[in-house]
C-alpha cells in the first residue's frame, strides 16, 4: 500500500484510485482515412517499458478527476503526478 498524491485532493490511499492505461496517447489525425491496421495500433497497442511509465489514473473514491502519473513499472513506485494537460515531468 502506498499513498498517491492526487493533484486535487492531496495524498490518499492507493485503494481510492483506479488505473487508466498509458497517458499521452493522442487521437490520430486524419482518422477518416486510417487503415484498419493504423486503427488497431491506436486502439490496442501500448508501450510496455520496464521503469518510468506515464499513465492515466483516476481518483475514483475522491474527486473523481483524471490525472497523469509517472510510475516505475518495476517497483510500482509513483514518481510524479501531474494534472491533465500539463507536460510530462522529467523524472530521474
Amino acid at each position, binding site marked *: 500500500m502506498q499513498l498517491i498524491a492526487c493533484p486535487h485532493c492531496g495524498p*490518499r490511499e492507493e485503494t481510492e484510485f483506479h488505473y487508466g492505461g498509458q497517458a499521452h496517447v493522442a487521437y490520430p489525425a486524419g482518422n477518416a482515412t486510417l487503415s484498419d491496421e493504423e486503427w488497431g495500433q491506436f486502439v490496442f497497442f501500448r508501450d510496455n517499458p520496464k521503469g518510468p511509465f506515464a499513465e492515466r489514473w483516476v481518483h475514483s*473514491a475522491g*474527486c473523481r*478527476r483524471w490525472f497523469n502519473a509517472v510510475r516505475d513499472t518495476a517497483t510500482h513506485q509513483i514518481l510524479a503526478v501531474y494534472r491533465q494537460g500539463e507536460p510530462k515531468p522529467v523524472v530521474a
Partner: protein
Amino acid sequence: MTVDIVSRTVQDSARRSPLGTYAGQLAAVPKGVSIREVPFLTQLDLRVEPGGEAAAAAERVLGVALPTTACTAVSGVDGAEVLWLGPDEWLVVAPAGQDALEGDLRAAVGQQGAVVDVSAQRTTIAISGPRTADLLAHGCSLDLDPRVSPKGTCVQTLLALAGVVLVVRDEHAGDVWVLVRSSFARYLADWLLDACAEYEDDPSWR
C-alpha cells in the same frame, strides 16, 4: 401534467429515510459517540467554472464564496453548506424542504453551469461525541486529528470500503457528518454498530 402527478404522488406517500428503521439501534450505542440519521436534506450538485460569471451568480444566491481550496466546506445563508467535491463541482447541502433553492440556483447559473437535485442520492449520518475520530478510524485511513482536519474539512473517501463524504463540523473532531449513498446506508450503519460493539464495556466510552 405528468410532472404534476409524479410530484403529487411523492408528496402524498409517507417518505421513508434509508435509515429510518435504524434509529433505535443507533441511539443505543455507547455514550462515547452519538449516531443519528439526518434524513431528507436538500442536496444539489453544482457545476460551474470557478471564478466565472455563473460562479459569482451562484455565490450571490448562496451568500458565500464557493470554496476553491480542495477538501473544504463553508456555510452559506439559511443553513446551506457548500462542500467542495472537485475543482469545478460543489455539493450544496441545505435543510430539508428548501425546494426553492434548486430553482434559484439554476436561474442564477443559467446556461453556464448545471444544478442537479441529488437529494435522494445520499443520506446523512451525524456522528458526534468525544470518540468520533476513534470510531471512524476503524475504517477510514484519513487522519481526523483537528490539527490535520480542522473544522470545515470536507473529504470524499472510503469508510469501511463505502464511498462517503466526510464533513468535519467542529473544532475538535467531535461532530462529523458522513454523507453516504442511500443504497450503502444500511451497510454502513451496520458497520458503525459493529465498530461500536467492542466499547460496550469500556469505561472511557461511558
